[in-house]
């Protein structure tokens, strides 16, 4: 009986969580004229694909998508490389000032992002990267959270394995590349997902840096549809639906490693 109540509550919450998604899906197939007429699902004969066609005909949606893929892909690869390398150093090497460095890194995580917008903009401006994809990629190359995530995971790689690799002829980078990274696969999967979502959905910084519409990423492009005098909600919903898909696909591809990665270290063994 108690179990039944618990399950019913869980189902209820699950449904609640699904409401916005269901609404998004329904809205993507609603004509603009029906948008406010049928608050939830319109009759089947009123469903339309017009929103999707207008996405690809009225605006460079494909271009936005490619831009997003490029920026997110490049950022994830660079972040993965530098964060794991940094995490490896913090986990497996002793060097002067290591504690201080880690303290400073942690402190930077406590600074709210918006505070850094102005100085970052200044920096990127002087680097000549305004209105370029590099202006999005370069500031995102290193991720303190990622470094700590990798450090935590790599602490559990036995030192003897590293020493064995050293004796087997690896230099320090080869140890990282051939031994530590493959062993850290679950955390790599988890980190890729987190980093990809962060970059893919990033709005504020691209909004500030990007000016030419042919360089817009998806969130900026979609936001463009809400004008002062008119708003194409249908197309926006269709675009949002398409924009969510890559994240969903990636999640299902990586979900096993993602869960394993996040719970790693929770239980010994």
């Amino acid at each position, binding site marked *: 009986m108690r179990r039944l109540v618990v399950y019913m509550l869980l189902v209820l919450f699950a449904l609640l969580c699904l409401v916005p998604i269901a609404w998004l899906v329904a809205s993507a197939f609603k004509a603009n004229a029906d948008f406010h007429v049928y608050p939830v699902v319109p009759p089947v004969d009123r469903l339309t694909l017009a929103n999707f066609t207008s996405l690809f005909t009225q605006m460079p949606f494909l271009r936005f998508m490619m831009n997003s893929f490029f920026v997110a892909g490049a950022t994830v690869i660079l972040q993965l490389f530098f964060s794991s390398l940094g995490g490896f150093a913090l986990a497996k090497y002793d060097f002067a000032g290591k504690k201080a460095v880690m303290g400073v890194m942690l402190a930077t995580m406590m600074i709210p992002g918006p505070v850094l917008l102005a100085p970052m903009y200044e920096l990127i401006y002087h680097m000549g990267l305004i209105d370029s994809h590099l202006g999005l990629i370069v500031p995102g190359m290193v991720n303190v959270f990622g470094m700590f995530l990798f450090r935590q995971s790599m602490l559990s790689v*036995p030192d*003897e*394995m590293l*020493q*064995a*690799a*050293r*004796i*087997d*002829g*690896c*230099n320090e980078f*080869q140890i990282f590349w*051939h*031994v530590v990274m*493959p*062993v850290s*696969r679950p955390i790599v999967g988890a980190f890729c997902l987190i980093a990809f979502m962060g970059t893919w959905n990033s709005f504020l910084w691209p909004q500030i840096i990007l000016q030419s519409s042919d360089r817009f990423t998806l969130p900026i492009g979609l936001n463009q549809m809400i004008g002062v005098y008119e708003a194409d909600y249908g197309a926006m919903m269709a675009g949002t639906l398409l924009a969510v898909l890559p994240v969903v696909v990636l999640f299902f591809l990586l979900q096993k490693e993602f869960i394993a990665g996040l719970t790693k270290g929770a239980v010994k063994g």
Partner: protein
Amino acid sequence: MAEIAFRNVNKIYPNGFQAVHRLDLSIADGEFLVMVGPSGCGKSTTLRMLAGLETISSGDLLIAGHRVNDLHPRARNIAMVFQSYALYPHKTVQGNIEFPLRMARLPAAEVKTRALEVARMLELEPLLQRKPGLLSGGQRQRVAMARALVRDPVAFLMDEPLSNLDAKLRVQMRAEIAALQRRTGTTTVYVTHDQVEAMTMGDRVAVFKDGLLQQVDTPQQLFERPVNTFVAGFIGSPSMNLITARREPAGGGPVLVVAGERISLGKGMETRFNLTDADAERVVCLGLRPEDVVDPQLVGEDRRLHGRVALTELLGREQMVYLDLRDGTRLVARLHADRRLKAGEEIAVGIDPARLYLFQADGRALPYRQG
């Protein structure tokens, strides 16, 4: 030629702890040297310095005549087997064995041939495509050996490679490793805390204590001529009895007073020592291996100790008898199981002077007779 030599080597950790003191030790080409001692004695640190995994605080480490103190491990061409085996869990057995060769950038065909050759030698062929996680302890150990063997290194280093195996497998692998070493003829340095391993495997055994090399010699010499009470007590199982003794002047050769009883040593020629009167004067401790306790009927009245049986342990054909001597000193004797003994029973045991060990106040053994 791959002779290894430690020349006055010291290891001091940043916290001031000195793990190794003034180590002088030469290991001949092709030799199987076992380093043995209780935990914390510096044997593993010494091995790790040799591997290049620990820095050397002072002194010189020479391999084939070249000073290698500052060489990265990979430049020393040394192979090591770790206690935990340290296999790469993401690679198959074959991947593990091939790894050192790949790192050395050998041609792919040669990598494959050599890996297969070693796998065949260690009977790993059926397991080549498995990951280490699916192997038993003994199989993992073999893979670790294969990974070391495949490289044709100047020396093998082994850090307690058998301590994670069950007793039966350990005995089997012990013989296999020794045989393998003889077959390949590669200089091998083997660390263990198990004196049985040390005695059965090594050409020579180096005994360490508190960072100091106590004695390095063949197993037989270590057993028969330990330089001090530590080596005497450490080598041999069960341990040697070390009992306080005092020399008493008497006619007809030196006499020792042991646990309140007089033991005649005879005219000197019977013991393994050059027992001059001056030497005998310095004796404070007598060593007697449990298996060297003899039947009292075989010796004279003046060579017997009396005690009360505290405990007996039957080992099959023999029994371990724990005796409390007259002054309360505990003596362990290994006697034939035929002799039925009850706890509390008063018995006599015989002492054969030829099998005694004699030590001085500083723990050093008296000078042994030459030859």
